[in-house]
């Protein structure tokens, strides 16, 4: 942090000297600004602060390699404070006043929905690094997290293959769990699971008293048919949820819980010994043993000056997104948003799990899907993975209304929600 500050100051000093020699307008050309739009205070700071740090590290490393297009990168960090309308204001500030070339940011879907019109109106680029519910494809947003078919659906397939026939869909009450559970319910019914074998339930944000719910899950699982819990419980509610599971003695060998929002970072606050064997589905685990990942963890720990710093899936998404953006800018020869957007499609970079991720015309990337089991040390060990990478289905084929939509941001279609049945484009077109 301090290091970076001195560096930024140094860059300013350099810029000031250069300004003496060159004409005044040239000064603004000296650096390329990269916006970082992650909450550093408020409820989401718990998850988003590390993403800010990983971006600072990536930018610092890129500058050591000589920057992009011969210019140094400059990080512009703003704090939208977990306040959704403030996200839109801060996004406007980054694009209109700071003139950033690209922004990396957001965590919750509601914050992304809040900034989307700003990025479309001012024609700038956002990289969104978190798994989400899909049903969206903006020409100005690149989604480096997983769509439901890159996380939730394969997890269900894994459970079905394990012989699970009864499902509890447990979620926090907001847009991501509700949409995901709608998709999963439709998918389970299509796979022959009976409606009475699916129980859907929602709890409020930050739900702390899980006794009733965990007892209900136990009861639902006592019919003799193999039962599993699919958890889209988000954020702070997870720790008391898992503590209650452990205390009431629900073992992974009896009723496994597969979670979509619990990573290494969340597990850091819990004693995981009673939770061994519960599952998580992601596209990256810190425990994945590849040279690229070992190298990344070492760099991250050196940057954080903490030998035990953990890495997680959205961090990998930023690593991939940043590498893709650098490549696209170099291919386009400019940071102009329209040119970079055109160049982005088809860009392929290595991911940290030993494969190659490619930016597809729907602005989502290809990813491998990993299912892992929680270990006693708080890490997640892969027990199953897709043989290759999976292409995102941004519009779910399992939902009425989104079944006929496709996204293709290449010419001539240039559309994020093209209805193949009516032949019309329903959203912003560029």
């Amino acid at each position, binding site marked *: 942090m301090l290091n970076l500050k001195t560096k930024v100051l140094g860059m300013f000093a350099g810029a000031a000297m250069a300004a003496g020699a060159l004409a005044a307008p040239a000064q603004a050309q000296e650096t390329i600004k990269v916006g970082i739009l992650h909450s*550093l*205070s408020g*409820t989401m*700071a*718990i998850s988003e*602060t*590390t993403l800010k740090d990983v971006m600072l590290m990536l930018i610092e490393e890129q500058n050591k390699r000589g920057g992009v297009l011969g210019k140094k990168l400059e990080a512009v960090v703003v704090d939208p404070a977990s306040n959704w309308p403030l996200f839109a204001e801060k996004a406007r500030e980054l694009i209109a006043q700071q003139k950033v070339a690209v922004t990396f940011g957001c965590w919750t879907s509601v914050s992304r929905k809040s900034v989307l019109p700003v990025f479309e109106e001012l024609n700038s680029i956002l990289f969104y690094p978190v798994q989400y519910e899909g049903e969206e494809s903006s020409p100005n947003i690149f989604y480096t997290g997983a769509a439901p078919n890159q996380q939730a659906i394969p997890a269900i397939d894994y459970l079905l293959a*394990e012989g699970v026939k009864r499902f509890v869909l447990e979620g926090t*009450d907001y847009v991501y769990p509700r949409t995901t559970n709608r998709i999963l319910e439709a998918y389970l019914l299509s796979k022959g699971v009976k409606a009475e074998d699916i129980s859907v*339930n*929602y*709890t*409020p944000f*930050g*739900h*702390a*008293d899980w*006794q*009733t*719910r965990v*007892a*209900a899950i*136990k*009861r639902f*699982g*006592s*019919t*003799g*048919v193999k039962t599993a819990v699919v958890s889209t419980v988000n954020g*702070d509610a997870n*720790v*008391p949820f898992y*503590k*209650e599971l*452990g*205390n*009431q*003695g629900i073992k*992974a*060998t*009896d009723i*496994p819980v597969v979670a979509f929002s619990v990573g290494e*970072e*969340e597990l*850091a*606050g*819990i*004693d995981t010994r*009673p939770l*061994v*064997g519960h599952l998580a589905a992601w596209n990256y685990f810190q425990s994945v043993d590849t040279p690229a990942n070992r190298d990344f963890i070492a760099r991250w720990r050196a940057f954080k000056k903490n030998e035990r710093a953990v890495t997680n899936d959205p961090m990998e998404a930023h690593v991939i997104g940043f590498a893709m953006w650098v490549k696209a800018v170099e291919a386009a020869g400019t940071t102009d948003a329209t040119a970079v957007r055109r160049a982005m499609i088809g860009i392929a970079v290595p991911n940290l799990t030993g494969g190659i991720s490619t930016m597809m015309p729907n602005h989502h990337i290809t990813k491998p899907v990993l299912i892992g*089991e929680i270990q*006693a040390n708080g890490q997640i*060990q892969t*027990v199953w993975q897709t043989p290759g990478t999976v292409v995102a289905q941004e519009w779910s084929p399992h939902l009425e209304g989104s079944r006929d939509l496709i996204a293709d941001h290449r010419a001539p279609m240039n559309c994020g929600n093209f209805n193949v049945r009516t032949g019309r484009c329903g959203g912003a077109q560029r």
Partner: protein
Amino acid sequence: MIRRPGLVALLAALLTVVLLAPPSARAQDAAPLIQRMATETFNDIAGAVAALATSGSPRAAPVIEALRDNRLVYRQADRAVFIREASGSFVSALTGEPVTDAGTTRPVRLNNAVRRAIDAAMGALTLMNPDPARRAAAAEAVFKSRDASALPALEQAIGQERDARIRILMEEARAAVVVASPEANEADRITAIGVIQRRGDQDALRMLGSLPATAPPRVREAAESASVAIRRTLAVWEAVQNVWYGLSLGSVLLLAAIGLAITFGVMGVINMAHGEMVMIGAYTTFVVQQVLRTMAPGLMDVSLFIALPMAFLVAGAIGIAIERLIIRHLYGRPLETLLATWGVSLVLQQAVRSWFGPTNREVTTPSWMSGSFEVGHLAITANRLAIIIFAAMVFAALLLFLKRTPFGLQTRAVTQNRRMAGAMGIRTNWVDAFTFGLGSGIAGLAGVALSQIDNVSPNLGQGYIIDSFMVVVFGGVGNLWGTLVGAMTLGIANKLLEPYAGAVLGKILLLVFIILFIQKRPRGLFALKGRAVE
């Protein structure tokens, strides 16, 4: 039961012969099975575990135990399997003899299927263990696995078991095996269903429900009627359980609100930073545990008792500082107090966030506070029970303090008539400061308890501030008994509503109820009467 005693005796004799045979000869048989574990395919490992458990090899128990504890490794070069000892040295899995150089090894990995196989295998292997807890666990494992091959060992164990409780568990396990076994005759299976019905819990339901459709109709009918009977009893217990959960939630609300009952209820200060005092108490617990971990690991089990006075002092001191620096300038201006303390709460949150980081901190739960036990069919988790007892103690102590000590007397005097108290020589502004410190300190105590059930994160307090105000306002401002009754009423009402209305709607209904109630009785359940009201 399904086998004649003669057969059991024969099996026992066979077992003795097997155990007496020279170990090297047995190890030969186990060798291919142990070898099969040197793989990445979970199904192969699970199969090998099951086969090894029934092979009768003396290497079965140590190898399976090592696998369970993640100590079983294999050499990549030639797939030789080793056990890593606690000391870090390796022994051969086949012979148990030490090896000097194991080379590059990787652990044999586990998944849930393998874990299930291990549980089943260990069940059969540890039925005779001298440790009663392990025997009970073994019986439970057999109950779940319903592994017919465990039957001879089970029969033998039942014959030798002296502990009546474990004996019942073993008989239930035997009944489970018999019910599930297609070879057993109908009468035996129906008797066994009776045994399982007497057990009467959710595991019994699960067992009866998993009876295959191919079972004879009379067996299935018996299982069906047993399930119905079990469900009927469990429904009654469920109601009891909801009340218990309500008490537990009520005690959490009481802990969170009781400090506020003093600062808001007694002093009339709208303290929005109350939740942050709870959070500071939780972080104090974290710091105390960190220090203990490095300085005196032996004291970890009593870390909470050390954390309690520390949390009280830290939160109390911060409370006094806030009162002296900010609140005392704002007495009589409730709106400014509200805004100022709201600001303080944000400052405290962000300070903790910058100091300790935004992510959750792990607070260890002492062993006596984890797990659960059953009273009838009521599952009582140890941490919830501890919190209920703790809340009751804090409440009683506070009540005694206010009623029986000189300081309590002065506090009550100042709240009832400040000017008169001042005229009697009480230093009212110091009483204010210490009363605020007391309320904050108690919030700190609540933080120690809440660190056991919630996130230790900078946001911890925010989740409790609304609920705390709700309890105090509902119970009646200025009355500790009102806070107690308010907390318990809201807790139990919440938990009785939740199973029917869901957590989200339940909370809304409760809020609507409180709004209506306050319309009717603006001063809450137990309103102060007389001159003190002004």
